[in-house]
């Protein structure tokens, strides 16, 4: 990341951006309901399974509970990917890299290692999201917006656990070297 000071930080400023995101969330609440993204995984999975193993898909309660690809949920996560794509293509300044620098400093250049880790991490995250019935967006953001205690509770614990994990994994590197 080749930025040096505030003036050239490629990211948007946090306050206006949070207004923008809040606007989108309120729009979603008005037009659909509480947004979720981990359910989108199930939605995609359901579509896939209905195609390759319709009987299995029909036998599982969890797939019954979540709408398939022809739904708002799937459109939403697909839209997120498209949004990410558009944003990535329209900004040359936010770097896109397969292996984050902080990871490279800690575990080396190996892509395989990183991919394996993100696969495993993704696995954990989604399993946990389903267990909790939501993720950062579906439970923390949507839940807290509806003043749900479970959303606040989930939010506090995921931040704490993530901070602890990051500290255990990257803490020493961050202390020794300049990580930006």
């Amino acid at each position, binding site marked *: 990341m080749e930025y040096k000071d505030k003036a050239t930080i490629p990211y948007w400023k946090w306050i206006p951006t*949070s207004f923008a995101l809040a606007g989108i969330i309120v729009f979603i609440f008005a037009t659909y309901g509480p947004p979720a993204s981990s359910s*989108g995984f199930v939605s995609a999975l359901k579509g896939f399974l209905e195609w390759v193993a319709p009987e299995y898909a029909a036998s*599982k309660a969890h797939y019954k509970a979540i709408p398939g690809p022809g739904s708002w949920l799937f459109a939403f996560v697909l839209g997120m990917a498209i*949004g990410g794509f558009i944003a990535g293509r329209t900004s040359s300044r936010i770097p896109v890299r397969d292996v984050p620098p902080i990871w490279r400093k800690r575990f080396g250049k190996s892509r395989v290692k990183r991919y394996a880790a993100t696969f495993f991490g993704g*696995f954990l995250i989604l399993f946990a999201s389903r267990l909790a019935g939501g993720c950062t967006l579906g439970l923390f953001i949507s839940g807290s917006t509806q003043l749900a205690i*479970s959303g606040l509770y989930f939010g506090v614990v*995921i931040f704490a*656990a*993530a901070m602890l994990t990051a500290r255990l994994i990257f803490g020493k590197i961050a202390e020794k070297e300049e990580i930006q």
Partner: protein
Amino acid sequence: MTQIWLGLFSGIAFGFVIQRIGATDAHRMARSHLMLDADIPRFMVLAVALSAVGVFGLQAVGVGRTMPLPTSIVATGLAAVIFGIGWGLTGYCPGTTWAAAGEGRMDAVFALIGGLAGAALFAHFHETLIPLLYDPTNLGQITLTDLFGNYAAATAVLAVGFGFCAWGIGKLWASNERVVAFERGPDPGGGSSKSSKKSKKSGSKGQKASHGDHSGHDGDHQDHHAHMVADFRRRFWVSLVLTVPILALAPLIQKTLGIQKTMAFPGDSYVQFAFATAVFFYGGRPFLKGLFDELKKGEPGMMTLIGVAVITAYVYSSAVVFGLPGKVFFWELATLIVIMLLGHWIEMRSVMGASGALKELVKLLPSEAHRLTESGDAEDVPVSELTKGDKVLVKPGEKIPVDGEIAEGHTSVDESMVTGESTPVEKSEGEEVIGGSVNGESTITVTVQKTGDDTYLSQVVKMVEEAQASKSKAQNLADRAAFWLTIIAISAGAITLAAWLFVGREFVFSLERMVTVMVITCPHALGLAVPLVVAVSTSLAAGQGLLIRNRTAFEGARSLEAIVFDKTGTLTEGRFGVDSVIRLGDESEDEIIRLAASLESHSEHPIARGIVEKANEKEIDYPDPKDFEAISGKGAQASVDGKSVKAVSPGYLKENDISVEDDDIRKARDEGKTVVYVLVDEKPIGAVALSDVVRKESRDAVSRLKKMGVQVMMLTGDAEAVAKSVADELGLDDYFAEVLPDEKADAIKEVKGRGLTVAMVGDGINDAPALAEADIGVAIGAGTDVAIETADIVLVRSDPRDVLAIVELSRATYRKMVQNLWWAAGYNIVAIPLAAGVLYPVWHYLLPPAVGAVVMSLSTVIVAINAKLLGRVEDDLSGGGSSEDNDANSEEETASSDEERANQEKEAA
């Protein structure tokens, strides 16, 4: 179909925005988790706060829907931990995975696939896991509305809470980052908004490390101090955030703002209790710890006072929350802690700031120097490789790398960073230059004399760091005030309780009165009264070129009764000047000077320099002498214009039986002046009388000090006659002449023996014992290291008027402190009897808490403004350093109850 389009549109907008904030960048997410980048967590939290308000609006107009979140407390907790581990490891969460994959990040694509696998596994075992998801607590259904009983109030609490949370994250993350930065090495590449500050800091450290020798200054003490400052700052900000809901829920505040109906809800006292508990244990920790430390040492002071007040308030209020009838003191408790934390933070930071500024100076030293090799070529080497005796080349406009002596060349040097004097100083061969000052118009060669820790700047830094360790008397003053207030608090509390019980009131009422009294006795403003003054006076002093090594001594300067100056180099310039030229023959005065200057132009003796200077001053052209020769210990001789010219001492005349009888010469010698005879062909044609030149500033300094009621004395090794003439010239109260170096301390003892508080001002190594003996030792100028080591205060400039500035600033500082302590405690002194209910039996008057709160805030504001007003004596101080025309101003501004000041005004008028 519409739903799909809406979903797609929402998704695109969502994905776009989270990419732009950087949430799809796993690297940035990891930095957020490491508390190195606050933006994403702040962004999330604020977005939730705003969304909650938006959704509240939607609900109000009946649009949109909410959805229960069916899950159990166990499953959510477990899931959150697993989720967090995955999040910390990858830096992705489900939403960002989609956007990041769309962006083209391959690791996100793998996270997505892994996620699908995880979801599939869960779906497969869903039935098995259902018992785990069963929720007897019905957690998923409980909202803040259920807790607060009112949707609007709950939304407000969440929005305000999250809003402050977002702000607090910025504070916490940033300060943590700085702490980390403190421990880190050089920063080669700069950083983000926050890390740009860090890069400056660590960059400087990196540069210092390249100095090698300077890095030693980052001692444990400094680090410890920095951590203390960071700790107080963190506690202050966190407590402040936690205090907001306490204030919002305080009935008194609600009533005042007229928001009682909207804000109050059943059970709000429990919420207040929760926040107050956090403030009490987290914010109050330093005070609770301080209370025990002080009690252990048997020295109850500030910490005891605060500790007693907060413990009383907390314990009593908690008891009230859980059933004891009475009122709670939560907001008083919280604001007291917050203001006390602020005071401690300011005080520590101001002390840190002084050395921070000096550290900046060390940073200014260049890291490389052009060293001259034996062949005369210049090679660039790191400053750390220079050794004593090396010769370095300093080009025009460059910074002088180390302390040294000019070996070749003549230039003007800008020493403003060292002395504060903005005019460049002319320097030529043989004169000393200080590392860090800026070379003027021409190239010079400097012989290195000091490197590393021995350099002037390093010494100054070290010195100030030591001063930080010395406990300030200012603190003692506040501690003394606090000690009495503690006694008052406890006894007034006890008396109140006893009195009410005695007159037969119920215990609960008496207890409430007692607690009110004890809480009220600890003035909020007391926490700021002294720290703010210290902060202002420290920065004022530094700005005036007064380096305070020992604050206790500095604060003692207000009661100085006598100041003893070392003569040479302090009151006088330490160089000879021609006072008079006495004719003994037909030659004119100018001719005598011309011949003498010609001869002496080849001599380095101070007397010779004085004569040559006189010739230059009078613009007398003198020829170059031939066959110059020094007559050891007695003078010099040379051939000028073909004549044999000699400049000699009386001893030479005696030896050669040359007798001179002249009244003027006798008079000059009686006055202690040095007389040089000028002989042409062994015949005396005239004599030159010289004396140590009295500084112009000395006269001003002495007269003004005397006006302030301070006796001014002089100490010198010179003859009685010399001392007397200088003393008379300056109008000194007393002088000590012919004092041997080892007797100087005895002279100070004698002055002390007269019952006077005495300061010694000196610059030489031989002054050091006297500086140590005096109540206050002041080293003047860029004096010798030993003198500086021993002194309590160092004057950056060689100006005796700065001594005056010390006394004035010290008096002004003390006055402000006392004033502030009165302002701080005054309200409480009045309020205690009212709070105790003295007027109750007669008029049924108890101090309304609202009135108490307003007056208390007012006294805090007054204390802050009053401390700032100390800045106004700056004009007065600069008067000490530059001109007399500020007199009128200064007297107007700082005049107060001090008798001396009153006298001064009378005299001035």
